[in-house]
């Protein structure tokens, strides 16, 4: 068992007794539980840093503080200073995410272990004692190891969203957490780290996480995404939340994205952007499930199966006329759809007596109406009676709740 801070005080010695100073250790792939140290960096006198594969190491003498190598043959000059990840320069003192405890902390020291001649990064020491050990150059003699955090549950970020692109590897165990928890973790780290973290998530998870982040943070993080990732995330987000982001971008950039989004999702966002933010149109979503009025339930069910997979809000199914302008005629709940007889039509089953909102109503008033009605959503209808979208209970709560509570309001329909 070795702590990096101790190891950094070791000297490297070859068979001829030539000693050099160890300056850093380079890691191999970071997508394993316990990354392997592949190279060591050393410097002799004031010369440039050189790299030697770790396989050249014969043994480590802790008492004499020496790392024995066969010879310095095989050492190279450092050609790409940025790569790979280096333990002392990059990981030590860096911000790390402790996924077990869902917190952000700093790597005050690193625990390395030799297994079959290979050196693995095993854990991070986040205790205050580790800092004092380093400051006063003391050795590690602690029996209690509760302050060591298993590297398996640590996500190491570099603070550079482009690192994800340049092929730097990540553990990605964080992808097992629900979006809400990831968003909560990102709130405690600098925005560049947050953007990096989201960039390494699968696109759908990144979109879901972005949806639950605070609006200011959303924008900061989104603007750091590379173009392809940003487009994919916008496409996968709920259109109302995507419209919020696009509505805050610089006009040229917004136009650029709107022209490159897939047609269907791009159109949904454009439709929502037509309404000012301080109106019902500004808080509604237009990703809703509709069904033709005269369809038999038996036929409606298989037809809706595919449609039900995508939108966030599927609790209500809106019955609309077959002919343009596709006027709204009534609503069916998901339960009604499942329990109705096959030969009944949608029109027979639906409830035609609806409360409906106009897109230019005040959102606060609409929020209260929805909460008072105890319904999960209210439809928004255009001039000619056509269905424009719905205001869900999530949107209503965020209009009515005090500011501080809004971020914590549950997102029922996402």
């Amino acid at each position, binding site marked *: 068992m070795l702590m990096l801070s101790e190891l950094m005080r070791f000297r490297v010695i070859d068979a001829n007794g030539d000693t050099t100073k160890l300056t850093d250790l380079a890691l191999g792939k970071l997508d394993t539980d316990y990354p392997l140290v592949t190279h060591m960096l050393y410097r002799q006198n004031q010369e440039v840093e050189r790299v030697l594969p770790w396989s050249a190491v014969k043994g480590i003498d802790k008492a004499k503080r020496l790392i024995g190598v066969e010879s310095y043959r095989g050492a190279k000059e450092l050609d790409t200073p*940025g790569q790979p990840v280096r333990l002392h320069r990059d990981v030590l*003192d*860096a*911000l790390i995410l402790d996924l077990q405890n869902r917190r*952000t*902390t*700093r790597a*005050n020291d690193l625990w390395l272990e030799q297994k079959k001649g290979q050196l693995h990064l095993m854990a991070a020491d*986040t205790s205050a004692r580790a*800092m004092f050990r*380093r*400051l006063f150059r003391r050795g590690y003699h602690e029996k209690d190891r509760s302050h060591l955090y298993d590297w398996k549950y640590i996500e190491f970020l570099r*603070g550079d969203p482009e690192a994800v692109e340049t092929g730097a590897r990540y553990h990605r165990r964080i992808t097992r957490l629900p979006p809400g928890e990831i968003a909560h973790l990102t709130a405690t780290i*600098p*925005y*560049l*780290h947050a953007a990096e973290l989201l960039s390494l998530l699968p696109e759908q998870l990144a979109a879901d996480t972005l949806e639950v982040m605070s609006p*200011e*943070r959303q*924008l*900061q993080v989104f*603007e*750091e995404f590379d173009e392809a990732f940003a487009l994919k995330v916008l496409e996968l987000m709920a259109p109302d939340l995507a*419209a919020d982001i696009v*509505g805050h971008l610089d*006009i040229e950039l*917004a*136009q650029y994205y*709107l*022209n490159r989004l897939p*047609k269907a999702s*791009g159109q949904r966002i*454009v439709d*929502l*952007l*037509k*309404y*000012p*933010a*301080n*109106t019902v149109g*500004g808080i509604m979503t237009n990703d809703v499930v509709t069904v033709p009025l005269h369809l038999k339930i038996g036929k409606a069910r298989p037809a809706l199966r595919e449609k039900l997979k995508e939108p966030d809000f599927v609790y209500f199914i809106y019955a609309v*006329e077959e002919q343009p302008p596709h*006027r*709204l*005629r*009534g609503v069916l709940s998901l339960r009604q759809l499942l329990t109705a007889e096959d030969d009944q039509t949608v029109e027979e089953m639906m409830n*035609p*007596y*609806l*409360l*409906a909102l*106009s*897109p*230019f*109503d005040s959102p606060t008033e609409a929020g209260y109406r929805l909460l008072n009605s105890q319904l999960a959503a209210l*439809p928004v*209808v255009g*001039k000619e*009676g056509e269905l424009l979208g719905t205001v869900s209970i999530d949107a209503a709560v965020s209009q009515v709740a005090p500011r501080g509570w809004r971020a914590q309001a549950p997102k029922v329909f996402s």
Partner: protein
Amino acid sequence: MTQTRPPEGLEPVHELDLFQVHNRPPAGQVSLRLNIRGRSVSLRRFHRPPRGLLRWLLILGPGLIASSAGNDAGGIATYSSAGARFGYDLIWVMVIITISLAVVQEMCSRLGAATGRGLLDLIRERFGLGWSFFAMGILFIANSGIVVSEFLGIGAAAELFGISKWLVVPVAAILLWYVVIFGSYAWVERIFLVMTLVFFAYPVAAILARPDWGEVAKGAFLPTLDLDQEYIFLLVGLLGTTITPFMQLFQQSSTVERGVARRHYGPEKVDAYAGAVFSNLISITMIIATAATLHRAGQTRIESAADAARALEPAAGQAASTLFAVGLLGASLLAGAVLPLATAYAVSEMLGTPKGVSLDFRRAPLFFGLFTGLIFFGAVLALIPGLPVLEWLVAVQVLNGVLLPIMLIFILRLINDGQLMGRLKNTRLYNVLGWGTFILITTAVVIMLGSQVLTMLGIIPQ
């Protein structure tokens, strides 16, 4: 019969004439025409930053607070002492240092926007644990001294009102502690800021006192260097109180806190510049007002807050002392809350421990411990009987001046790190101004320390 809302839920939805109400967008909504996929669409949801003056006013924030907190008890004491003792002679320092302050504050703001991280954070990540503890130690010493001076300011203001400081200082300490931890600090901060507006009385007083403007101009643009020990001591004090390590820490973390991203940094510069110019204009008028009243009347020493308040007499007459007390109280309370809070934030951030007023003692012991400890320490020390208040205030600013070059080295090295800053790296002009400031302050500090050593050795007579 009038009807404001159609009978929804009472008739089938398609039979309703829904659009008797709200069928138009609310007034004042601007729409933008964009070309999307070859079609021109009118969009209304775009968030447009306000134009004109309002836009610039909205940008003002951390810079203004940092600089208002800079004109605190220690600041007033130093500016007043400089004006009373040397008249207009030291104004040139303020003119030069306005540029330095603007440059330094802007660099910190830029560091915050480009990295999203605080100053101590960056020092730890780039220079390692040892240097970050060193920087933390410096900030700690400097900030603890200032916290004490804020409570001295609160005590002095209380006595001008005729209330015992033994009552006001503990009450103020508890109040600040409670408001920050349990109350809505953002709201209280505005009250403190409004109280500091009282210092606008200084420019008025400076004009009404009819100073010799020729002399003022001479003091401002013709640097004089007096090797008198007190002159150099006050010069370093002026540097230290105007560019305080705390202000850099605060400017950077509030830029981060406000969510300024590197892509939108450009206009944010104005905040740092405006804050620097605004605060130094007030400081210069403090010197002019004091010089035109106390110095002219032959009173070259300021013994108490009441003396300093007399500089406001040309503007406020009998009310000078009350006015001065209100401003002093506001500035001291503002800095008395901001400083311990910013220190606790920065230290917790650097050490990687939980932070934030939304947590509690159990979850963030270090953060709350530091915050509480600093306020307690400040209040208790400020109540020590017989503490020479004005001397302490000026001495703390001198200490700040001594520590400042060390912080400047960190800032200048960080801001020239291309990997960290990308295209927001320092330009050559900024480097010249930044290192110029460093040289200016270091020279002043070396001369001051040197002359004190020489005095102690008896080479220069006292």
